[in-house]
C-alpha cells in the first residue's frame, strides 16, 4: 500500500480531492503543511473528508496543526496525529510515497 501526502489547503486547491479520487482504497493519506485544515471537524472541507475516512487511513502532521493554532480544534473521526518522526515511520511502513502538490 502507498502513502499519499497532501500539502495544499483543500479550500484553495484541488490536490486533496484529486488524491481522494485516485488513491487506492486502503492507502494511507497524510495531511501536512496547509493541508492540515482538511482534518478539522468543524469546517466544510473536513466534513467532506470525514465521509471518506472508511476508505483510507488518515494522518495529520501535529507540528503543522500547532503552527496554525488549530491543534486544539476537534479532528474528524479516525485521524491519527503524527510528528515528523511518525512521518518517517509512515514512509518506511508503506511501499512507496506519492506527493500531491
Amino acid at each position, binding site marked *: 500500500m502507498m502513502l499519499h501526502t497532501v500539502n495544499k489547503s483543500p479550500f484553495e486547491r484541488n490536490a486533496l480531492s484529486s488524491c481522494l479520487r485516485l488513491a487506492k482504497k486502503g492507502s494511507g493519506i497524510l495531511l501536512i503543511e*496547509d493541508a492540515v485544515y482538511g482534518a478539522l471537524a468543524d469546517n466544510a472541507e473536513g466534513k467532506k473528508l470525514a465521509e471518506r475516512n472508511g476508505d483510507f487511513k488518515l494522518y495529520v502532521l501535529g507540528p503543522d496543526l500547532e503552527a496554525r493554532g488549530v491543534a486544539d480544534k476537534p479532528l474528524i473521526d479516525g485521524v491519527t496525529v503524527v510528528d515528523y518522526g511518525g512521518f518517517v515511520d509512515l514512509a518506511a511502513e508503506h511501499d512507496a510515497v506519492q506527493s500531491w502538490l
Partner: protein
Amino acid sequence: MEDDDEFEGEVKRFLYVNRKAPHGTIYALETLETVLIAAAFDQDVSMVFIDDGVYQIKKDWDTTNVNMKNFSKTYRALDGYDVEKLYVEKESMEARGLTEDDLIVDVEVLSAAELSDLMDAQDVVISS
C-alpha cells in the same frame, strides 16, 4: 493620525488583500512587512482577510516544532501603527468554522456583499 493639510488630495486608499494560509507560503509574513512600512506614509490603509487568509489571524500559533518564525503578535501591533481597518469576510469564516473568538485581533466581520463595496472603493490594491 496627524492632521496634515499638506497631504490633502494625496491620501490614497491602500488595500492589502490576504487570501493565503500562513506558513505554507511566506505571503502572510511579507505582506505584513509591507503594511508596517506603508503605515509611515499616512495613507488610508485597510487589510482584508478572505478565503484561507482568515487563518492568518487565527490565535494560538505555536511554531516551535516547525521551527518557523511566529509573527502572530505583529497583527496585534498594527493598531500601534495606526493600521486599524481590518476586515474579515463572514462567508470565509463560516466555511472554516471560525468565530471572532478564534482571532488574535479585533476585526470587523463583513458579508461578501459589504466587502465587495469596500474593496471596489480602493485606489491601490496589493494582493498575494
